[in-house]
C-alpha cells in the first residue's frame, strides 16, 4: 500500500484522520466488558476465570494458527479474537467443562470468521455461532446452571438451580401462577446479578456500565439496544395484557436471560449488523420479537442467541432496503 523510504509521500486527500483504529475500538470493547467479567467472577468465582482464560487463549491461538495455515498476516494484533473469546465466555454457563469451551472457540474463530477471510468479512457473530453450536450439540451441559455466591434463597444442598426463565418455562407448563415465582427470584436479584445464568448475563448493572462506556466512545449507537430492549418490553406488555395469569411481568422478561448482554454487546457487533440508523432500529426490533417468540412458544427457554443470528442473516437485505434519502434527491423526485 505504501513505501515511505524517500523524503516525503504523496497520497490522496484527506490527509487528516480521527486517529481511531480497529485495535483501539476492540480495546475499548474489552474495557467495556470488564465490569461484566468482574461480576461473573464475584458470583461464580474460579469458574469464571477458568472459562474466560480458556476461551480467550483458544480463540487467539486458533486465529494465529489458521491464518498461518492460510498464509495470511497473523491478524491477532487487532484484538478482535480476544473480544470474541471474552464474549463467548460470558455466554457460557460457569460449570461448562473446559474442552467444550475450546470446541466453541474453534467453531467461532475458524468456521464463523477466518473461513470468510478474517475480520470484516464474517456474516454471523462468531461468539454467538460458537454458543449456538455448543447449545445444539451439548444441550445438557449448556443448561446446567451453577448456584451463584450470595444467592437470594440458596436451595438446601443442590449444586445446580434453574434460571429464572428455565424455572418459568417448567412452572408455566405446569400451570403455576407467576406470583409464587417472584419470591424465589426477586427483581433486586435480577438487577444485581446474584441469580443463576450464563457467566456474563446475570448482573444487569455491570452490563449497563459497559454499555455506557461503549456509547461514550462511539463504538455503538443507541439504536440497536433501545430497539431490542424496547421491543421485548412492548411484546411482554402485550402478552401481559392478554393473559396476566400465564405470562411473566414485563420487568422479568427484560431483566432476566441474556437481553442486556445480547442487546449491548452481541447485537451491536459492527461487522454483522446494519449500518444505517433505520436499519439498526429494524434489526433491534426484529431481534426483540424473535426472542419473545422463542421464549413464549419455542423449545428453548432463551431466544436471544438465535434471534441475533437470524437477524444477522437478514442484515444484507436490511442494508439494501433501508438506504437513507440522499441529499438533493427528494427535490428531484418532485420536480422530475
Amino acid at each position: 500500500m505504501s513505501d515511505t523510504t524517500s523524503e516525503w509521500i504523496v497520497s490522496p486527500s484527506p490527509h487528516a484522520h480521527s486517529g481511531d483504529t480497529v485495535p483501539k475500538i476492540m480495546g475499548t470493547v474489552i474495557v467495556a466488558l470488564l465490569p461484566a467479567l468482574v461480576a461473573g467472577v464475584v458470583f461464580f468465582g474460579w469458574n469464571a476465570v477458568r472459562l474466560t482464560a480458556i476461551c480467550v487463549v483458544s480463540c487467539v491461538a486458533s486465529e494465529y494458527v489458521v491464518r498461518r495455515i492460510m498464509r495470511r498476516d497473523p491478524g491477532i494484533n487487532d484484538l478482535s479474537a480476544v473480544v470474541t473469546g471474552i464474549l463467548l465466555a460470558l455466554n457460557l454457563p460457569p460449570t461448562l467443562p473446559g474442552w467444550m469451551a475450546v470446541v466453541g472457540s474453534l467453531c467461532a474463530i475458524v468456521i464463523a470468521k477466518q473461513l470468510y477471510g478474517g475480520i470484516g468479512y464474517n456474516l454471523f457473530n462468531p461468539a454467538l455461532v460458537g454458543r449456538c453450536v455448543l447449545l445444539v450439540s451439548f444441550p445438557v451441559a449448556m443448561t446446567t446452571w451453577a448456584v451463584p455466591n450470595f444467592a437470594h434463597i440458596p436451595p438446601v444442598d443442590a449444586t445446580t438451580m434453574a434460571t429464572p426463565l428455565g424455572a418459568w418455562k417448567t412452572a408455566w407448563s405446569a400451570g403455576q401462577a407467576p406470583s409464587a415465582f417472584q419470591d424465589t427470584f426477586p427483581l433486586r436479584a435480577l438487577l444485581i446479578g446474584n441469580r443463576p445464568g450464563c457467566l456474563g448475563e446475570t448482573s444487569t448493572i455491570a452490563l449497563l456500565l459497559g454499555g455506557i462506556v461503549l456509547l461514550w466512545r462511539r463504538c455503538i449507537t443507541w439504536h440497536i439496544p433501545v430497539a431490542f430492549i424496547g421491543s421485548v418490553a412492548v411484546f411482554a406488555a402485550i402478552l401481559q395484557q392478554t393473559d396476566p395469569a400465564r405470562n411473566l411481568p414485563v420487568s422479568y422478561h427484560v431483566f432476566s436471560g441474556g437481553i442486556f448482554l445480547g442487546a449491548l454487546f452481541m447485537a451491536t457487533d459492527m461487522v454483522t449488523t446494519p449500518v444505517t440508523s433505520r436499519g439498526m432500529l429494524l434489526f433491534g426490533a426484529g431481534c426483540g420479537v424473535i426472542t419473545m417468540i422463542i421464549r413464549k412458544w419455542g423449545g428453548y427457554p432463551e431466544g436471544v442467541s438465535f434471534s441475533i443470528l437470524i437477524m444477522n442473516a437478514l442484515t444484507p437485505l436490511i442494508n439494501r432496503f433501508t438506504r437513507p434519502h440522499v441529499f438533493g434527491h427528494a427535490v428531484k423526485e418532485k420536480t422530475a
Partner: protein
Amino acid sequence: MDLLIQTLIIGGTGLACAAILAVAARFLAVHEDPRVETVSAMLPGINCGTCGFAGCAEYAKDVVLHGAAADLCKPGGSETAARIAAFMGVEVSESERQVAIVLCKGDNTAAKRTVGYNGLLDCGAAQQVGGNGKACRYGCLGLASCARACPVGAIEIRDGLATIHPGLCISCGKCVVTCPRRLIRMVPESRSLHVLCSSLDRGPEVRKVCSVGCIACTLCAKAVNGQGIAMRNNLAVVDYTVPLTEESIIAKCPQHTIEKRPGTKGEAA
C-alpha cells in the same frame, strides 16, 4: 389386468397434460431467428466489447438482423471474420493482426523516484494525485491497472514496468483504454523495432529522471532519413505504416531506448 390399469392411468395423465401444453404453446409462441445462434457460436465469447456491442450474443444478433460488419471481432481475428463473412455471404478485407505494446522502458532500476506514494494501488488513482512519485511525468506507473483489465492475462509487471507478451495478446484493446498515461499502442504483429519511450520532455530533463528515456538526439531519424521514424516534440515516434528494418539504429541510440522485440511471427519485416 392391472398392467392395463397402469398404462391407462399414466397414459391418461400424460395425454391430459400434453393437451394443456399444446394449447398453451400456441398462445405463447416466441419467434427467434436460428441464424443468430450459429453466428454467436463462431465468436470467441469473451464479451470484450471491442466490436462496439454489449457482448458476442449482441454482436451476432446485429450481424444477422442489422447487417453489422463481419470483421469487427478483433480477438477472433481474420479467421472468425472469414467464417462469418462466408456464412453471411459478405466479403471482408484481409487485415493484419494488431498486438499491444507498452511504449516505456523505465522500470524501477532505470527510472528515478522523488517521493513515496500511499494510496490505492491503481494507475488511474495514482494519476489523480500526480503519479506515484515516479520522477518521469510520462512513464509507466507499474500499478497493474492494464494487467487487471486484460481478459487473458497477457500483461505482467516486472520491476515496476508493464510488459505485454505478444503471443498471448488477443488485440481486444482494453489495456489501451485503461492506461491513464496512454502508453500502450496497438502495432502490427510483424513489427519488431520499437522506440520504448513516450516522454515529451527535453533531453536534459529526461536525463535527470530516467537512464533509458529518449533524449531527442535525432540520430535514429537521421539514420533512416525520416523514413519510418519522425521527431515530434522531443520524442522519436515510429510510423508503423512504413516498413522499418534498419537495425543499426539500435546501436546508434545512446540511451538504448530502441529495442528489437520479435513479434509472434518471428523475423518478418
